[in-house]
């Protein structure tokens, strides 16, 4: 099973058993850093870490799929996750109202589900 790195509880619940879940109990940036660390260890990025036009400072949740298989370091994956982390850091942090949390989880889940056609 490929590895889903996520901080979205809804995605964790939905994909338990379908993927190996690496749950990150932290902000979106921590998810991207966890992805980068695994990519540096030879996992390949399978979905785009900036999926959706919801900007990194407008959402709290992110789910990214990487390969189960570890091989030689994949340059494209290194480059994409690096750019995504830089892009994320340039957005000023913003308070997101609590009533938006459920919607944001739903959108992240829909994006990753759509990508994986699940």
């Amino acid at each position, binding site marked *: 099973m490929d590895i889903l790195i996520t901080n979205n509880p809804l995605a964790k619940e939905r994909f338990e058993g379908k993927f190996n879940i690496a749950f990150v109990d932290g902000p979106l940036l921590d998810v991207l850093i966890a992805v980068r660390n695994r990519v540096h260890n030879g996992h390949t*990025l*399978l*979905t*785009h870490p*900036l*999926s*959706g*036009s*919801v*900007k*990194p400072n*407008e959402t709290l949740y992110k789910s990214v799929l990487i390969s189960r298989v570890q091989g030689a370091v994949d340059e*494209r994956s290194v480059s*994409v996750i690096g*750019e*995504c982390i*830089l*892009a994320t850091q*340039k*957005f*000023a942090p*913003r*308070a*997101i*109202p609590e*009533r*938006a949390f459920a*919607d*944001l989880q*739903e*959108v992240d889940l*829909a*994006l*990753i*589900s*759509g*990508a*994986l056609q699940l």
Partner: protein
Amino acid sequence: MKLDVGYILIKDIVFAEKSEIKDGILRLNAKELETLVLEDERFLAVSFDIARPGESVRITPVKDVIEPRAKVEGQGDIFPGVISKVDVVGSGKTHVLRGAAVVTVGKVVGFQEGIIDMTGLGAEYTPFSKTTNLVADFTPRDGLTPHDYEAALRFAGLKLAYALGRLGVNISPDESKVYEFPSLMEGIKLYPDLPRVGYVQMLQSQGLLHDTYVYGVDMKQSLTTMLSPTEIMDGAIISGNCVSACDKNTTYHHQNNPVIEDLFAEHGKTLNFAAMVITNENVYLADKIRSSDWTAKLVDHLDLDGVIISQEGFGNPDTDLIMNCKKVEATGTKTVIITNEYAGRDGTSQSLADADPSADALVTGGNSNQVVTLPKLDRVIGTLDYTEKIAGGFAGNVGSDGSITVEIQAITGSTNELGFNYMSAR
């Protein structure tokens, strides 16, 4: 393909007993329109309003904007595969209610939906402050999922625009324009000395709130393909994209794509508009590789001298944009890319989430992070309740004087990546 587009200039929209166009006034029976859209049981209610240029009106959260059009002669009908049967469009005669638009309003997931101000500073950033808008504000039934609500809103807007367009079938247009898109061989024979230029349009296709449909097909399930730009004028491409107001292409943008307009304007003069390619922007990286490979293969096979590539959205599509650019350039075809920027509020950050040395000719639609304060307006159609959740809005951004401070990414069409906007630089 040859399409004769007749423009009926609409000076105003009013509610009336009988739906008709008279002396340039679009008169509408609201009850009939209500019956039409409430056929869909997913809606509990709809309210209609009219917003005119210059009025002190704010419309939010905007889902889609659609121009009413009608097929008068020729094959197929408007919005093929969605509202009308699947059939090839793009030839014959089409009437356009120019100056009128249908604007759909409704909370799908509560954020990411745009603002249209009809007056003041905000009006300067959106093209839809210049159209007279029939605004339809929908209330969904309880428990409707975001997927179903998005689909319901999408269809309702198209149904309304279609119905309005039909009122123009027997009206003589005030102006008309003929768009002729020759076959490859005809084009070469007609303009043997002109550079052959193509247009690669990237369509948002990431999933819920981020989808585009071509002849009714969800573009994320398609490979890169080709069509005639005149088909797009007949509604072959429709928007299911609710996200990122500033750079989402509404259906109106597709119907009036300025890249296509400008390529036609130069066609036979400085260039030969030889091909229109559409491709997607999926989340799965293997899809990106496959689609951009296909774009480059098509462009190479068509032996084009240059292509314009426009993207839609931020982040994920930047990767598609750069892949398309790099691979097309590698075939020996020159590219110009159109994007917008997220360069931070001071405009000094890197603009895109991807880059390549081959991307050396770029047109920008502006910096979406630019901050503006929009004055309180007298009337709100829709609700301000979600403004703090809109892309670019800040939590608690509504001032005590009723003004709202937002990044311009909250404004519908402000940094549109087809160039259908008012941002410019000197």
